[in-house]
């Protein structure tokens, strides 16, 4: 009965099916666009030169968020310094050198699992290892290292994917011409995979820039009257500042919260757009 009905109306059934799929696609995009518009509308009134370049005053209820912007910038750079070389090196090892054995399967399993660990756990781990055991104190260094560990799985897996996408015959040809493995990797494989690697790096850093939990115990300060002077100083940071002014300060003017959120959002979105531009440019130029 049912099958005959479906068969007779198969074009209608197909149309309904497509409509449902299209709707679900729209529903996944709507919240993102909604969030962006909402934050933008609510926060734009707080944005001013003073807000972007001034220090907070009157218990954060007035003034700017300059130290938090600078802090997030420092943390992102610091994270890049540790996670990018380490991540790319690991990806090169996995993609170009390691054979598929128990050991590499274990490494891959670890990477996948690292990606699934809640960020607050990284924060606690960073507190134990970097802040206390290695005695870096609550500092940019400790926070950046913690964020690096969190970012590594993203960098490694996207970089490995980008390396694997480089056609195998390039390697064979290069080797057959008397190049060593490393020369082949450096002059051809890495060069071709670079845009893909960069995209992964930026997406990883973007996550790091927006995280609160990993820096909570390792490097973030509630309020600092001056900018950090060395990697061993603590720092204010945008996500943590947002958390602070949203929950810890009574009678907080609402537009400062949304203004801070907007700045963070723009920071992260800008990185995202850069990644997209790099990727599409490289795709257009790619010779394979």
């Amino acid at each position: 009965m049912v099958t005959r009905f479906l068969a007779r109306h198969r074009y209608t059934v197909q149309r309904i099916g497509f409509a449902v799929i299209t709707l679900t696609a729209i529903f996944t995009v709507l919240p993102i666009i909604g969030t962006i518009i909402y934050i933008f509308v609510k926060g734009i009134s707080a944005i001013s030169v003073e807000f972007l370049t001034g220090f907070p005053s009157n218990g954060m209820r007035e003034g700017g968020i300059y130290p938090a912007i600078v802090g997030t910038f420092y943390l992102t750079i610091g994270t890049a310094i540790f996670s990018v070389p380490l991540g790319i090196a690991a990806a090169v090892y996995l993609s170009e050198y390691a054979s598929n054995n128990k050991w590499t399967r274990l490494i891959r399993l670890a990477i996948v699992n690292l990606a699934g660990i809640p960020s607050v756990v990284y924060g606690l781990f960073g507190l134990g290892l970097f802040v206390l055991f290695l005695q870096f104190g609550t500092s940019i260094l400790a926070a950046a290292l913690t964020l690096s560990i969190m970012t590594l799985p993203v960098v490694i897996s996207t970089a490995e994917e980008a390396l694997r996408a480089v056609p195998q015959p390039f390697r064979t040809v290069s080797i057959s011409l008397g190049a060593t493995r490393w020369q082949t990797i450096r002059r051809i494989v890495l060069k071709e995979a670079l845009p893909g690697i960069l995209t992964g790096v930026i997406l990883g850093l973007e996550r790091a820039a927006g995280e609160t939990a990993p820096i909570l115990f390792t490097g973030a300060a509630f309020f600092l009257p001056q900018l950090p002077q060395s990697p061993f100083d603590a720092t204010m940071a945008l996500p943590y500042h947002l958390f602070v002014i949203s929950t810890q300060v009574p009678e907080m003017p609402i537009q400062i919260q949304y203004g801070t959120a907007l700045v963070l959002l723009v920071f992260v979105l800008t990185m995202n757009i850069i990644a997209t531009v790099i990727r599409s440019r490289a795709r257009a130029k790619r010779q394979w």
Partner: protein
Amino acid sequence: MVDKITIENLSLQYADGTESLRDVSMGIRQNAVTVLFGPAGGGKSTLLRCLNRLNDLTEIKASQGRILIDGENILDLKTDVIALRRKVGMVFARPVTLPMSIRENLTYALELAGIKRKSKLDEAVERSLKLAAIWDEVKDRLDEPAIALSGGQQQRVCLARVIALQPEIILLDEPTSGLDPISTGKVEAALQELKKEYTIILVPHSVQQAARAADYAAFFLTGELIEYSEGKEMFTAPKQKKTEDYIMGRFG
């Protein structure tokens, strides 16, 4: 004429258990085109890849025997494989130009070999593109991406890239399998020119090509060298029944 290469009792099994070469012994003449032909899976490509040790990239279970080039066993662990690969160049079945300009495709290996002077590089580019019969077609676009060329042109650039290193031996693994008859003709003509300076080993993509190109021909079947003789003799009066059957197209 002298033997440039002597292969002695070469056997090879891949890691998955397939036996690729079984007790192959043959001498390969200098300044001649030696053709290795036979049905797929006969071990021809494996043999080629032994000659420049490209099989090092593949997982091999076991290999026995020796390959002497100018009297030296290149299968020895102490062999400098980088130097070997510069001496024994290879052209593959699919034309694979590296993702760079035509000029850079040719200078890539030269620069790795330590040649930096621009005049020397330019000279090598022109000389090898001419020998590969592609110079007239690309001389005005040397700095354009090599990928923009047609398949036939790319394959000749690949041949030029090997010549640029001034090797002594050139291995060609079905170099014209994807090419149109005109490009194929150009490559074949280039080989006849090149053999004056180089020792050439060709795995042809058809029996007809084998017959056209061969000074010497070796017939391989399931890893064994069935028959080896001068090309003329092989394709007019083969001694073995199997060889004859294959040449006549009764199997394969």
